């Protein structure tokens, strides 16, 4: 009989250990993986995420007049957001190191107030880490009253050590409806 009891105790130990693994792996999936994902994307400049820098820091960068790069602007509106949203110009030419400002224009086409959130990406992805913004409407949620339209400025530059082979960089925004996540500010 004591052999039976030993076995039962051994089985209990196995169950307990495995349940620990199960709980741990659930936490790994639900909590740690998303954090890890964001951490890795941010620290390697993946996901076409461009970094924000201060205006002062941007002003100190030396402009490389020897070459010009085309920056194209694109805009997408998610189908659930009843807005019009377009860049004022389709593309501009600039020198690496030069600080430029462009405007997007957004207009609420619906009969009610709507909160939107813009998500940006930079292609080619290798260019993302050289793309620096000092100001962008995408850093905060935007609220437009019914029928209201608004200029949305972006201030940005390309760092001078942008690889030579990159001649065109596209900055793309997608505007999503964000009422669900509206922050009171």
């Amino acid at each position, binding site marked *: 009989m004591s052999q039976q009891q030993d076995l039962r105790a051994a089985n209990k130990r196995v169950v307990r250990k495995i349940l620990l693994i199960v709980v741990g792996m*659930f936490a790994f*999936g639900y909590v740690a993986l998303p954090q890890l994902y964001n951490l890795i994307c941010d620290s390697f400049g993946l996901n076409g995420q461009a970094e924000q820098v201060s205006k002062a820091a941007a002003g100190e960068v030396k402009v490389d007049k020897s070459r010009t790069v085309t920056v194209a602007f694109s805009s997408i509106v998610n189908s659930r957001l009843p807005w019009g949203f377009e860049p004022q110009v389709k593309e501009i030419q600039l020198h690496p190191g030069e600080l430029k400002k462009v405007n997007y224009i957004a207009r609420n086409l619906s009969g009610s107030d709507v909160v939107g959130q813009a998500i940006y990406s930079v292609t080619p992805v290798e260019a993302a880490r050289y793309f620096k913004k000092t100001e962008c409407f995408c850093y905060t949620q935007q609220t437009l009253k019914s029928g209201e339209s608004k200029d949305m400025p972006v201030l940005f530059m390309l760092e001078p050590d942008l690889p030579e082979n990159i001649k065109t960089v596209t900055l793309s925004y997608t505007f999503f409806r964000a009422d*669900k996540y509206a922050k009171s500010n």
Partner: protein
Amino acid sequence: MSETMTHDTHHDEHPSGIKRWLFTTNHKDIGTLYLWFSFIMFMLGGAMALVIRAELFQPGMQIVDPNFFNMMTTLHGLIMVFGAIMPAFVGLANWQVPLMIGAPDMALPRMNNWSFWILPFAATMLVAPMFMGDNFMSGQGPAFGWTFYAPLSGQYDKLAFFVFAVHLLGFSSIMGSINIIATILNMRAPGMTLMKMPMFVWTWLITAFLLIAVMPVLAGAVTMLLTDKYFGTSFFDAAGGGDPVLFQHVFWFFGHPEVYIMILPAFGIISEIIPTFARKKLFGYASMVYAVASIAFLSFIVWAHHMFTVGMPVAGELYFMYATVMIAVPTAVKVFNWATTMWRGSMTFETPMLWAVGTVFLFTIGGFTGLMLGVAPADFQYHDTYFVVAHFHYVLVSGALFGIIAGVMYWLPKWTGNMYNEGLGKLHFWLTMIGMNLTFFPMHFTGLAGMPRRYSDYPLQFAEFNQISTIGAFIFGFSQLIMLYLIIKCIKGGEKATDEVWEGSHGLEWTLPSPAPYHSFDTAPEIK
């Protein structure tokens, strides 16, 4: 199932009729339940596949609505993976692991009952929304593919059904795995060291650990979808700062080990059968164990080969490419060992051996196409085409499913006490073999020519190959009824099986009488 008691007459009271099956804690009963459940799901998933193939017989829309077609592809995949293949392996483990290690039952018999009886409820929850439309064609079953990528799956009205079905399936798998691990670690007969365990037991031990590690991650993924939809989180919703690509990482972190969960026990079965019918010992036992362990380890670090086209940095593509093709090394070790086991053996080709050899052949084709897909720059052409469909059906149908059928044929005489009809067995094998290859081989060509997967229609240029596939699928599907008939016939009667059943059999299960008594190994056998 016979209830004869041979050497043990105490505690032989057990309820009969439906109660026997509802309340049973006997590993053989539960194994039987799992196997029948799996067969029913196999028929259901198979019927869905035939709807898909019937629609694709010709270009244009003939039989079903596009949404219904999407429901069929989604449910076919989910039901085959979680309803047919995985429960069949757990059923085989329930029957065989105690018999092969000389244990009287599973370590946790009551939990065993639970892990089975959760399954029918989970399957019902998964399928039920299909019947919630105004009419059959407008059913509301899941229609976003078995990989349920966000953000599409997040827009599904009946998401909660889906999420809780997956949770239940996860509970069932985890409880089943705990049981198998506890049984193998604690209940081996004296003298059976780990390195003396039969290969089937080894592969299941490793598979159980894989399940323990990744089923909770799958639960995490569906929970994120659930909280995104109903509780205001935004894991995958860009508007709230989330990212749909994260979903793919979480899913495939589960998904790639999952595909090995579905193949490793089949490797184990093959490694039991080939030595028996080659009448030789398994070549390279230790290397087989290490190969399975390294495949299991590698399966955790290659997941993003399913995501080469999401826009990963080149370094990521390279890493996942090299890691992926590295899996071919331990896999090839296994294939070479099977071939070497057969080399100069005195082979006979009874039905289980036919299935085993067929598995080795066709699985290897799937392995090769896997290598092609693993080459990142090439995958940009193959991704989401029928080439991928061909690849995973060669590894899952002619790997996992054929392995299961091989195991069932191999052990059926031990379970029922009767030999099955060899003629029927061979007929079933050859028809399935022809049907399988007719169905899936042409998909390599349609895929390479650019036919995308998961569409209910296609351009005229693909018509011939699709017609061949459809004809093959119907041959394949209806041949499975032969197996049903064969199994029922074998349960009902037939030539009596000897205890050894096969001339070259080896291992503890063959020392028991056929059929294996309801309670076996009450006193543990001694292993030299």
